[in-house]
């Protein structure tokens, strides 16, 4: 696979390893099948009679297979990986989000803090469903961009929108995590 834009890493990336085109949406069942085929092919137990160098290579491929599958089979990690591959994710601390969104996150966090002092299960439920609603809305918004992504012909504003989605989701996950801490009360 060759890319004219030259934005991809020179070394073989996880998508190439699985023989698929880089994409935000992948055929997860097909990916799993390929992973299992690879696992069998590279399994160190099947290479014990081979020369040392080949055993080492099988071991390397086997761990690459696990690593690549862990990243590509998880939609969030896959998104982060591809955004980084495309150079669309800035260094930590340089990824800004609009103030309006940060304001919303501030407010949600404040309400969770109030909940810590004065626990009310119905408020927790309400916050959870509010966050779930936001998550769905964000995903519906970003989905067309994920769908129309074409490697080598990626649109900058699409990538910007996907990056924002990825970053916003970090906040929502953190908030959900905080809300789940109340689960046992």
């Amino acid at each position: 696979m060759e890319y004219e834009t030259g934005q991809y890493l020179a070394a073989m990336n996880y998508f190439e390893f699985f023989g698929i085109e880089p994409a935000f949406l992948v055929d997860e069942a097909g990916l799993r099948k390929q992973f299992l085929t690879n696992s069998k092919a590279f399994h160190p137990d099947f290479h014990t009679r081979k020369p040392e160098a080949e055993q080492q290579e099988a071991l390397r491929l086997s761990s690459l297979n696990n690593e690549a599958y862990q990243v590509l089979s998880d939609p969030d990690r896959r998104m982060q990986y591809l955004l980084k591959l495309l150079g669309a994710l800035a260094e930590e601390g340089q990824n800004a989000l609009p103030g309006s969104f940060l304001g919303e996150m501030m407010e949600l966090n404040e309400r969770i803090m109030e909940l810590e002092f004065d626990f009310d299960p119905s408020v927790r439920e309400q916050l959870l469903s509010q966050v779930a609603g936001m998550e769905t809305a964000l995903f519906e918004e970003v989905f067309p961009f994920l769908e129309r992504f074409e490697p080598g012909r990626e649109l900058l504003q699409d990538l910007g929108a996907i990056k924002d989605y990825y970053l916003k989701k970090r906040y929502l996950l953190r908030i959900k995590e905080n809300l789940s801490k109340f689960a046992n009360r």
Partner: protein
Amino acid sequence: MAYSDKVLEHFKNPRNVGTMDKSDKNVGTGLVGAPECGDVMRLQIQVDPETNTIVDAKFKTFGCGSAIASSSLATEWLKGKSVDEALTIDNMDIVEELALPPVKIHCSVLAEDAIRSAIADYQQKNGMKVTSNAEKAH
């Protein structure tokens, strides 16, 4: 990872936690975030327009101990400073004071960004020339 005593002290006894009326003309509000960790920080200053001095500062931060300590320290430093002096606060000063380890430097950057964006907000509101570049490159 172990936090320094100063971080712990600010974390346990954060100074100047609170909220100011953001519609007040003399109040500047800075709202910044570190999406990677889901941190969000609001820092507000109240300026005396006669003297261009910061008379009060408040913050509210949802994030790790270092982010809370950085913003707590920032509000302490801001009080009594002129707006121009406040703009000279560098994130590395915060790193040094709190003995932040390299992996937590971004927390101090966040606090510096919050100061700059609060000042920019104040200046904008009052039709002044914005001297703080909120998007300062680090």
